[in-house]
């Protein structure tokens, strides 16, 4: 279990990580999602005690990282690619890590086999491809057979076969009851692997939810309706017992796959429709919406949106963007 409590990291004026609190639980894959520069890597470095938090705390099974005896046997991490000396062989790289944590040399051969690098174990790592590098990094993470694993952007730059391999590996590790904490800037990747989702943007927590809930909230289908006879249509819909998501908005939205029903209803009441279009939200859009909000919030710091009545803040779409209410809903 990894617990973050009010974790904050400042670099001078810039706040890289802002008061993050969440818990990474065992037995599931927790996806750590955010756009590039959101603070994911900084957070992970603080978990490992590489970067010192400005304030707040992060604990691994209740202890600070530097209080762990032989930390590689508690938590294994894949940080950025190629965090090793290119002149050293893969075997010797893993051997020096193993020795520092009292792990037997036989385990080095085991993990090399697991990641499929046995054939190149004696080769210098500077000749390794990106994919081989990721495999070596993962071998290092698995070395101590730890209960917790942390992967920073493990699929970055990998070919489809490598991506497939890493996905299956993470699922296997979680199924063994381990804690798997994996960062990505790709929603589509997380949707395929993660059971739980932590979303950050600009260093602050935007969502901490199960993947199933996130999908249910964000992949809703609805019907977009524009009509010059708003009031009549609203009455008709009300009469038919169909709920309108935001009756006050200019463009009406009706939840569900109901374009046929709405169209027939409008025809019966002789209401002119300018638009009647079924919509389906993708998770990628939901994620972009979520994180765009955080970017926007910073761009208009000190001038909260809606502070000037009747005037749209610059850069805002004319109506309230759909999905911005998903947390409320």
């Amino acid at each position, binding site marked *: 279990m990894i617990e973050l409590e009010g974790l904050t990291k400042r670099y001078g004026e810039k706040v890289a990580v802002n008061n993050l609190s969440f818990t990474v639980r065992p037995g599931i894959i927790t996806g750590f999602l955010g756009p590039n520069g959101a603070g994911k890597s900084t957070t992970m470095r603080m978990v490992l005690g590489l970067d010192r938090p400005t304030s707040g705390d992060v604990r691994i099974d209740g202890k600070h990282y*530097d209080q762990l005896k032989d930390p590689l046997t508690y938590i294994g991490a894949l940080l950025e690619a190629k*965090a090793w000396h*290119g002149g050293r062989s893969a075997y010797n790289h893993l051997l020096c*890590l193993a020795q520092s944590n009292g792990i037997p040399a036989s385990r080095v051969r085991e993990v090399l086999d697991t990641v499929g690098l046995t054939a190149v174990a004696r080769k210098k790592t500077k000749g390794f491809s990106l994919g081989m590098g990721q495999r070596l990094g993962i071998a290092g993470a698995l070395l101590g057979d730890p209960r917790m694993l942390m992967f920073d952007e493990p699929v970055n730059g990998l070919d489809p076969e490598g991506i497939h391999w890493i996905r299956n590996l993470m699922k296997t590790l979680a199924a063994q009851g381990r804690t798997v904490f994996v960062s990505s800037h790709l929603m589509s990747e997380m949707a395929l692997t993660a059971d739980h989702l932590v979303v950050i943007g600009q260093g602050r927590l935007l969502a901490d939810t199960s993947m199933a809930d996130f999908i249910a909230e964000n992949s809703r289908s609805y019907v977009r309706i524009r009509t010059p006879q708003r009031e009549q249509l609203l009455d008709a819909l009300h009469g038919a017992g169909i709920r309108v998501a935001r009756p006050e908005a200019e463009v009406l939205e009706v939840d569900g796959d109901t374009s046929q029903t709405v169209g027939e209803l409008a025809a019966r009441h002789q209401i002119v429709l300018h638009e009647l279009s079924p919509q389906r939200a993708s998770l990628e859009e939901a994620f972009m919406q979520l994180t765009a909000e955080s970017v926007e919030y910073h761009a208009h710091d000190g001038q909260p949106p809606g502070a000037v009545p009747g005037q749209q803040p610059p850069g805002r779409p004319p109506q309230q963007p759909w999905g911005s209410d998903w947390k409320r809903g």
Partner: protein
Amino acid sequence: MAAAQVVRSEWTKIRSVASTVWTLGLAVVVTIALGMLISALSKNEFSGLSERDQLSFDPTFVSFAGTSLGQLAMIVFGVLVVGNEYSSGMIRTSLAAVPRRGTFLAGKILVATVLALVVSMITSFAAFFLGQAMLGDLKASIGDPGVLRAVFGGGLYMTLIAMFSMGVAAMLRSPMLSLGILMPFFFLISNILGNVPATEKVGRFLPDQAGSRIMQVVTPLDDDVPYGPWGGLGIMVLWVIAALAGGYAVLKSRDA
């Protein structure tokens, strides 16, 4: 034992990169070969020297003439042992494996120092005996007063130079920057400061100027240096301690 594990790990690290072999190899070859060359040249030139210079001729020190160049290879060794961690990104992997930074740095410096000491001692003794062989009649014997101390001191000097470089590299966290400062400093600047009358009195307290005193057996005639061989080495040790303490402070306080 955590410390023993770190030492084993650092030994694996140091023996598994090519730079260890070529830097130390170069230090051995250059120190010995240049020492032999200058010893041979000194033998031929001796009869042409003034009586004054003949009186202060120091055959032991002459055989260590290669140290001035060989120490540069030792500097590269010391810088790369520590600096490669930073330039390769290995430091993050290393500190994730050994989060107690003091233990990590101490283990690394201990292993590199012991290796440097063994190589330096072999080099120093080899440079002395091979250099004396070149000097013919002028040669000193290992049993002469002060000679064993000088030869032993030559090994210590080379080791301390490597340690000083490790400390500087830990402070600067970049091998290129460290070499860019240390190489010209020890090859040129220190010599200039130590030989120009205006700066001589300060220059003699620089680590290499003070430390190399231990390799002298015959004191120059007009010598007014305020420390002896061991005093000079002590000054060098203080520099090394300061560099390592600075390196530790930086490693302890900075984000990796």
